[in-house]
């Protein structure tokens, strides 16, 4: 086996172990994305996101359920390889460990499981970005290009991770300024700013308006989750704390901390080893190490955000004063850097703890027997070995008996200790994230849409003569239940984003963009629908008619998702039940 293929195989195996039964045929019921037959994006600028573009292009030649599996395997593989490549050590085992930890941790677990695949893609690129930042040399133009490219990619794929990287770069440049390396500091900042700003068309599209629309309620709704026992800080240090964590756990998503009562001890252990790695190697690249430590503290504070009184003020200060910082509606994304720190420095720490086989030199020999004044050494003894002069090539070699180096205890011990250390390290990482493996511990199963969904879709097409989106603009479809997330039976009780819009494309679908209880609609269409659902009287139906809604699809057999009572569908005389399947009802709304 070629050596360079080994990491590829290792991380592919990790990906398979994580996804497991999700690799079987069927859609993966990711929380927010993926479970729909067709890939399309609403606005043209969404195609400028390279991840979206890749997703779309792959979907042109492959069915979406296969594309999703390929992308997810690719993301795990990419994340591991990226960290593997970044770690500046010669020991390959430590590189594997770093890559493995960077993949197998609660942050990656949560984001992959819920389907924040842009964040995961950005997370995968982040170590590479750090690598190119460290490797930047003023006289090497290629290194400039590399940094420019990775900054562009990172900001393009995940704007949040791009921002975190830009902030890290800012701090890195500042440390250079303190050391009076003005030129390098300027070059670093300039390249990263340029790379990021190449995506300006994305920023000033939907992103900017979204950032501007965030208000206190959004920040409250998506604040870092507080662990009932260890608080928000405990959650963040343990790489947990996704805003909807209690909601997810309620809906059957299992996190390992539910099984391990002493999970903070494990987090503590990872931090101890990482800080040890930082301390013992700090003189190798003092500026980068100092910057990393400072940024770790900053990340912890920001990730804790408004969930803790002592960090709240700092978070709010930055939110109000730093440009675009208010885009971090969900500050837990900063845990990505904590995860990077632990993987990077934890592996270095373990490397410093593991015994290293020393290179033997003549200085190591404790006793020497030489032949008088000739200077030729005939016998020598190290701490554990006996060496003799090989008279054929006049070199010292270990003394052998039955082809075994006589006192090889130390060497053997070193190998045994190294192996034990690595096995322990891998075991503790696996055990502390056991619910990541096996398709998220068997909590997710691949699924297919029921036949009646397809029947309903065909019926709508047939009756509305709807061929493309512009043709159907006056025959919109209202998808109910009115919550952005639903738990239909066919996904085996997994909580997924409302699939109406993607499933019934190209018919324009009016569906909720908002998670009830966490944020509220601000566009007039959603507002009208919501008013109608609160009080579904004939007067409100007239309001609904103004929105050109002609069809209503109601997905039955879902668990509690919102507060509305949908029995009005059966009672209203203005709605005709066109089709009723096992899981779905299709109504035609007569405008007259």
């Amino acid at each position, binding site marked *: 086996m070629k050596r360079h293929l080994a990491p590829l195989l290792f991380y592919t195996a990790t990906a398979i172990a994580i996804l497991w039964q999700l690799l079987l045929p069927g859609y993966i019921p990711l929380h927010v994305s993926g479970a729909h037959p067709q890939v399309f994006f609403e606005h043209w600028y969404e195609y400028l996101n390279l991840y979206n573009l890749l997703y779309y292009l792959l979907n042109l030649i492959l069915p979406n359920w296969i594309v999703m599996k390929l992308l997810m395997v690719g993301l795990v593989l990419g994340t591991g390889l990226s960290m593997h490549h970044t770690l500046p050590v010669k020991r390959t085992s430590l590189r594997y460990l770093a890559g493995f930890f960077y993949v197998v941790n609660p942050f990656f677990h949560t984001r992959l499981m819920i389907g924040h695949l842009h964040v995961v893609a950005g997370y995968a690129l982040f170590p590479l970005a750090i690598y190119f930042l460290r490797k930047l040399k003023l006289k090497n133009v290629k290194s400039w290009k590399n940094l420019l490219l990775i900054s562009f990619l990172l900001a393009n794929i995940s704007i949040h991770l791009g921002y975190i990287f830009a902030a890290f770069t800012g701090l890195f440049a500042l440390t250079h300024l303190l050391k009076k390396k003005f030129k390098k500091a300027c070059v670093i900042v300039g390249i990263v700013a340029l790379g990021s700003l190449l995506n300006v068309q994305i920023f000033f599209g939907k992103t900017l308006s979204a950032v501007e629309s965030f208000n206190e309620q959004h920040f409250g709704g998506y604040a870092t989750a507080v662990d009932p026992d260890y608080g928000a800080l405990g959650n963040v240090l343990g790489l947990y704390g996704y805003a909807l964590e209690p909601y997810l756990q309620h809906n059957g998503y299992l996190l390992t901390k539910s*099984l391990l009562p002493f999970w903070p001890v494990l987090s503590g252990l990872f931090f101890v080893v990482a800080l040890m790695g930082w301390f013992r190697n700090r003189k190798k690249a003092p500026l980068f190490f100092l910057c990393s430590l400072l940024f770790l503290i900053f990340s912890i504070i920001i990730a804790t955000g408004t969930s803790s009184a002592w960090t709240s003020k700092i978070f709010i200060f930055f939110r109000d004063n730093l440009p675009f910082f208010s885009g971090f509606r969900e500050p837990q994304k900063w845990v990505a850097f904590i995860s990077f720190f632990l993987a990077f420095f934890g592996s270095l720490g373990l490397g410093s703890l593991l015994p290293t086989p020393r290179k033997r030199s003549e200085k190591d020999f404790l006793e020497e027997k030489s032949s008088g004044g000739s200077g030729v050494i005939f016998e020598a003894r190290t701490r554990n070995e006996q060496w003799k002069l090989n008279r054929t090539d006049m070199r010292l070699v270990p003394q052998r008996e039955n082809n075994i180096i006589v006192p090889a205890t130390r060497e053997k011990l070193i190998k045994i200790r190294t192996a034990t*250390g690595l096995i322990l390290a891998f075991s503790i990482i696996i055990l502390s994230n056991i619910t990541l493996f096996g398709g998220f511990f068997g909590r997710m199963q691949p699924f297919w849409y029921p036949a009646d969904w397809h029947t309903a879709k065909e019926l709508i097409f047939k009756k509305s003569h709807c061929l493309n989106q512009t043709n159907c603009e006056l025959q919109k479809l209202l998808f109910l239940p009115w919550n952005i997330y639903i738990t239909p039976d066919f996904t085996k009780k997994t909580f997924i984003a409302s699939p109406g819009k993607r499933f019934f494309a190209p018919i324009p679908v009016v569906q909720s963009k908002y998670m009830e209880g966490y944020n509220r609609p601000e566009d007039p269409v959603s507002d009208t629908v919501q008013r109608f659902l*609160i009080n579904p009287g004939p007067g409100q139906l007239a309001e609904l008619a103004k929105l050109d809604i002609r069809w209503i699809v109601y997905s039955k057999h879902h668990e509690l998702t919102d507060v509305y009572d949908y029995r009005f569908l059966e009672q209203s005389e203005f709605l005709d039940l066109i089709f009723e399947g096992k899981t779905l009802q299709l109504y035609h709304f007569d405008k007259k």
Partner: protein
Amino acid sequence: MPDETENSSRSHYKIPVRGPLSFLVALGEDFTYTACDRLWKRGKQFWSYLQREDTQAKLQRAKVTLKSRLTPYQLEDPRNYWGRLKNTLSPAHLGLKKAHRDLSWNKISTVLLGVLMIILWNLVSPQAALLWLTFAAFFLFNWDNRVIAVATLSGLIAIPFVLFWENQVLAEQLAILVYYLLGITVLLQVLNWNSQPDKFFLKGAFWLVRKFANSFPRLSTTLALLTFSARGLFVITAILVIASGVAIVRSLHPPYEIITHQTAEQEVAFTGMAPEGTQSITVNGQLLKEYQANSPAWLYSASVAGKTMQEGFNSYKLVATSQTGRESVLARVDVTYDPHFIPPIAQSPIRFDGIEKINETAYTLRGFVPRETASLTVNGIEASNYQPFNTFWKHLLSAEKGNLKEGENTVLISAKDTEGNILGTHQLILKLENKNLITVSQTDLTEIAQQEAPAVEEQVIAELRTDLKNQGFAPQEIDELVTLVQKNDEDGVNAFLATRVPPTTPEPTPANHAAAPAEPTTASEKPAPSSQLQTPNSSLQTPNSSLPTPNSQLLTPDSPLPTDLNITITRPQYDRYILSGKSLPGTVTVRVNGTSLKKFKAGDASWQFMVNQQLGNLEEGENIYSVQLLDAQGKLIKREKLTVYHWL
């Protein structure tokens, strides 16, 4: 000649002046010339004096003297107090010049300090910002920390005087400041020591460690191995790996139940189920005498008097033995007995998680309830869209629905299990103000609700009686209704419905005339006492004789009203009612209050119509329903009018 010379030089200054005062002018000219000339000469002399070497040396000495003000000799003089004090307070001595130089030379550090100060000033407080700035500046530029020490001592000395002037607040603030400054001084000194070549502090610390290690060699070696060495970390990791594995397996497949309990009672009892075929149960190896073979349950009580429980931690392992002698652990009971233990205030079983604004008049309340919850009511009404045994709940409050008003709103959330036991009651006081709903307070009323459930019921019954009285019902009718409500409502007091249909025999007797006035002509009029009353879900038949009017009749819920359409009212859920009735031959359309019933088809024997508050066709108090049966031509076959009273 001399005169000539004088004249020639004078002519240069000569100003032509004529008249009687010309001599005065000439005198002035002369004086001016002389003064200028002298001054010029003196200036030249002074310049040449300054250029001389000895003068320069003198000047240098003078500069030094100017700087230090006093010569060393004078400083050594113990009597020269003023001189010494002035010297101490001079900018050079205080280090102000050094400070200025440091700050101006290290511009980046200065800017950073400024930024730090601005951030801290905004984030924390001005006082904290100044203190941190002081510390950072002294540390970064290695300034003499005795300056802070002097400030600390001055502050310390000032405190008694401030107290003497009875300014306690200032004294307190000063004390806090002194405390912080003292801390900064000590810390700076420690850091200073540490930066010295001999590393005084580290040496001291190592000396202490060595002393400890010599005193407890084995303990210290073990600690050092565990804490600092790779081997120790490996041991810790190995232990954690094993513990994690065990914990995960046990979390997924708990071998037996572990019950933990903390109590101040001298006796505690536990009970549980025993597997089939259990012959005996032992508790910590002792046979549980109270248990009889093959009994389905076991009960164990531990007490201080029986010497089975002592102060502190007690653990009881209950092992069942089957007929074949096979042993299995039933449970482990961990009891911590602490006579001084005060049980914490029970956390509310109903958790209120927050409010979500839907629009300016509608809000969602959300939270969690126990898994056993079969029904969840909010102010007596079933929580919107709550499904039994779900742990997450939501409820819609909106002005349009009538359950939210401007100002303070009291929301009482109550969870019950399948048997109607109260699992939890939580009261929220919410305030709707400026189109924002905010939580004013929340109280857990579970214990009160569980203990005083009957009292609450009585209170509501009293309110119900008042309502009925206001609606014009006769006292006996009220009694009958209340009795029915109490009997039929197992869950306590809930919404109920009373209906009235036009009497079949409209002539009131003189005896009941006072209690049963004529039918109101308009809906706005106060309703008359009912001629026919019905309460839904009533499970008991009430004797008809109890009502004085001949046509007042209390009916069971499903028994039809004495109308031609046999209208019945059923209540499948607390706040939802179904009006149903039979249809007549030829009926094609049934309309209730003008709305055609969609599900009714020609030829159907009966029709149904759902009423509830959410649909907007049921209101608190009086509701009038007009049922019309129409044939194919739209001609009216039959019309019935119902007046329904709804109370919460």
